[in-house]
């Protein structure tokens, strides 16, 4: 009967959904290996401890909260040292982190401090004898590796969305603990958090992504893409490398091999030809719609639904139809 650990990511005093996914994963593993305890850790500014209840509601038996004014922003050295110390103090089969931007910075640090292996960006996991067996996409998602990882604990970072955060209420012991090092002594100092347009859904979380490419012809025409995204209501706006390189959209909107990897329920590719490095970023989307005036465009080969036409003509009509469909819902 093994205990599992979950690091619960938060930002600006709020838990992030990926953090709860980590708790759910830990709960699943504990239940699958004899019903051990799930110990969770959350770190932030004073007040974060109030989130313990939410964490317990997702299956944690123990919730440790670290509250410190110097930890309002993610301070990598402090968080890593604290997580490592906490994990070292227990005996865990596995310790779950999120393979989010923060988690991909945090988990390797903790693994190195503990001298244990890390299975990063995993999409599935199970305990198998004395190993953890996980699945991990490689080569821009073109191959899927099954890895067997040994050691105690095994650190794992979960691809966002690989596990669905699920309520599994427990009566948890909660306590506030001190950070493992003084935040004031950290060498890497977080200075500022620049919130993006908070009305904008992040590409990694949006169920729908509407994306634009060169076929839009001019940066002003991205308005049509944004209009369609608004019509869906729960959509984020993405872009191809071609248009981000040209400065039509910020680099952070780029979906592709070296940009964002996304896996929404619906991906609408507008005026995008489908260069391989772009496909690498969105190939795993559940449903793909492509609108392009070139019937030969490679994007049509992977699109579930293709519309051959001028994106500037199709988008307004589609936006209108989506808006009406949503209203009548």
């Amino acid at each position, binding site marked *: 009967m093994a205990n599992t650990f979950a690091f619960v990511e938060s930002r600006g005093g709020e838990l992030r959904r990926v953090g709860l996914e980590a708790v759910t994963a830990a709960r699943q593993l504990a239940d699958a290996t004899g019903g051990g305890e799930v110990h969770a850790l959350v770190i932030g500014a004073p007040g974060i401890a109030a989130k313990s209840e939410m964490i317990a509601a997702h299956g944690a038996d123990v919730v440790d909260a670290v509250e410190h004014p110097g930890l309002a922003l993610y301070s990598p*050295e402090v968080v890593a040292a604290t997580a490592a110390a906490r994990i070292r103090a227990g005996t865990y089969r596995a310790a779950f982190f999120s393979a989010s931007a923060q988690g991909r910075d945090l988990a390797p640090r903790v693994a190195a401090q503990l001298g244990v292996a890390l299975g990063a960006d995993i999409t599935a996991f199970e305990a198998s004898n004395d190993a953890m067996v996980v699945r991990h996409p490689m080569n821009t998602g073109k191959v899927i590796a099954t890895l067997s990882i040994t050691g105690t604990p095994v650190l794992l970072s979960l691809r966002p969305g690989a596990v669905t955060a699920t309520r599994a209420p427990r009566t948890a012991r909660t306590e506030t603990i001190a950070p493992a090092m003084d935040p004031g002594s950290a060498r890497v100092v977080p200075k500022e958090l620049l919130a993006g347009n908070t009305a904008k859904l992040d590409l990694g979380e949006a169920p729908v992504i509407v994306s634009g490419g060169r076929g839009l012809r001019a940066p002003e025409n991205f308005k049509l893409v944004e209009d369609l995204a608004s019509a869906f209501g729960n959509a984020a706006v993405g872009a191809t490398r071609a248009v981000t390189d040209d400065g039509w959209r910020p680099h952070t909107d780029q979906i592709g091999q070296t940009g964002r990897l996304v896996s929404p329920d619906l991906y609408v590719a507008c005026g995008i030809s489908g260069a391989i490095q772009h496909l690498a970023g969105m190939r795993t989307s559940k449903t793909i719609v492509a609108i392009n005036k070139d019937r030969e465009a490679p994007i049509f080969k992977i699109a579930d639904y293709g519309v051959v036409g001028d994106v500037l003509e199709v988008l307004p009509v589609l936006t209108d139809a989506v808006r009406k469909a949503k209203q009548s819902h």
Partner: protein
Amino acid sequence: MKMAVCIKRAADMETRFKIAANGTSVDETGVKFDIADFDGFAVEAALQLKEKDGAGDVTVISLGPDAVQETLRKALSMGADKAVHLQADVVPADALAIARVLADELKGGGYDLVLFGRMAIDAANQSVGPMAAELLGLPCVSAVSQLTIANGRGTARRELEGAAEILEFPLPAVVTIDEGIARPRLPSLKGIMAAKKKPLEVKPAQVGASRVKITKMELPPERTGGRIIGEGPAAVPELVRLLQTEAKVL
């Protein structure tokens, strides 16, 4: 500034990959290799820092079989000054094992800045850089999309989901480089010739135990696509119907 860039030789990601007969790796027949995408950004970032300073030294380091020497020479042809090949027949699947070999080499090198690509485009663990930093006891900022160095300190920007953060750190430090900082320059023909004369040291790598093993490698399920449902705005009603009834995403 004395800089080191750790680079990896990786396959061209435009390849249509096939699984090798052993079932645990990718078939390399006919596959083109080059400096892994993000590592190329890291080399370019280091070269730009050197040029901005007007002085400095860039050493590129790579772990792997003899074939990585060609990759190191590519970095030399871009403008790096010297190369170190840490010879090992196989690159382990365990990022910590890799980090330990690199840290051993970097330790004692007196580097002001050690750069990595954000992640190896093939293994996609995004772990080796921060792990190496921990082993070296150096401050580290990962996935840096903007970087300035001045007076022995660095300021870095990292992209988050729907946000960004700014951090400061002292040198010496480790950074891992994300897209957006720099596009790797084309090696000039003179650069290619000059690379042959630059020092490339080969050392056997002491690779320790690897606790990560690839037990299977497979292709993801084929996407079936190619269904054109109509032309122009006239196709919209049918598209909406399919999204509602078939795909159930509307």
